[in-house]
């Protein structure tokens, strides 16, 4: 069973993500900031990370950087409200596999995850 780490400081968004993919057979681990996210990344060794950008303690870019120092290949999908093209570019340059804007559509999230796991 593929394991996904979901990192978002909004309980509402974490629930939205869980609701969207709960029936797709993934094992899901959640964290409410980048710091907690990285601790869980080390503990659970997930197959994919889905992260927000603006978070307390450690933001999504900080998390992405720490993950890339440990693992160059694990897919990291950024799911953010930030619609700036320069932000998307920055994420891609730092090694994000994909970038999605909030609010996301259920089908859109499912398709991105399917693409990620097909590549693997």
């Amino acid at each position, binding site marked *: 069973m593929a394991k996904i780490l979901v990192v978002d400081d909004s309980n509402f968004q974490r629930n939205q993500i869980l609701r969207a993919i709960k029936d797709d057979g993934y094992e899901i681990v959640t964290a409410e900031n980048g710091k907690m996210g990285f601790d869980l990344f080390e503990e659970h060794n997930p197959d994919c990370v889905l992260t927000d950008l*603006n978070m307390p303690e450690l933001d999504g870019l900080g998390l992405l950087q720490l993950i890339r120092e440990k693992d160059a290949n694990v897919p990291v999908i950024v799911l*953010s409200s930030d619609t700036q093209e320069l932000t998307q570019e920055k994420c891609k340059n730092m090694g994000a596999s994909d970038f999605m804007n909030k609010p996301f559509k259920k089908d859109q999230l499912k398709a991105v995850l399917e693409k990620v796991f097909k590549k693997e």
Partner: protein
Amino acid sequence: MILTPDQEDAIKEFINIGAGHAARALSELTESHVKLSIPAIKVVKLADLQKENESFTQEILSSVRINFKGFTDGTAALVFPPASALKLVSLVSDEEFGTPDMDSVQAGILTEIGNIILNHILGAIGNIFQQHLEYNVANYVEGEIIKLIEPDDSTPDLVIMIIDTQFNLKDLEITGDVVIFFKLGSLAKFVEAVENVLS
């Protein structure tokens, strides 16, 4: 600071683009059609803020705030009368809430709604000017409008741009205002960037 008609028109258009994206996002969140009024823009000093908008005189407002910095620095906020905020939260979460007060769960949902809307507006500004803005984490603020302003910035000369927008969802008459507080000197930098785009 007085804006020229061209500057005001351009800012209105930029905000309109952002507001349009925000309306689409809100429509996806609520799964309903969102009608957004054309923004009216006013630039006022802090000392005159409450005179400019009657809803800002209320003692309790439900607001979501994001500080931004980059080519211009300030705070963007989405300000709701509490009844409108609760209606919006109910619509998004698909739950009816019995009490007129906002609890932490509802405040969390409103924060995320505000985060998405404000990000779409600020994102459009960043994209139009091709300059990156950094944001802090969105937070929920309840109380008078003055609570949105950082204590360091709280001088009567602080310049504030008020963008009046009205959301209409499922005929629920949910109203809210987007307010941008520029740090001292930052509105001038913003207007300079507008001038660059115009020229």
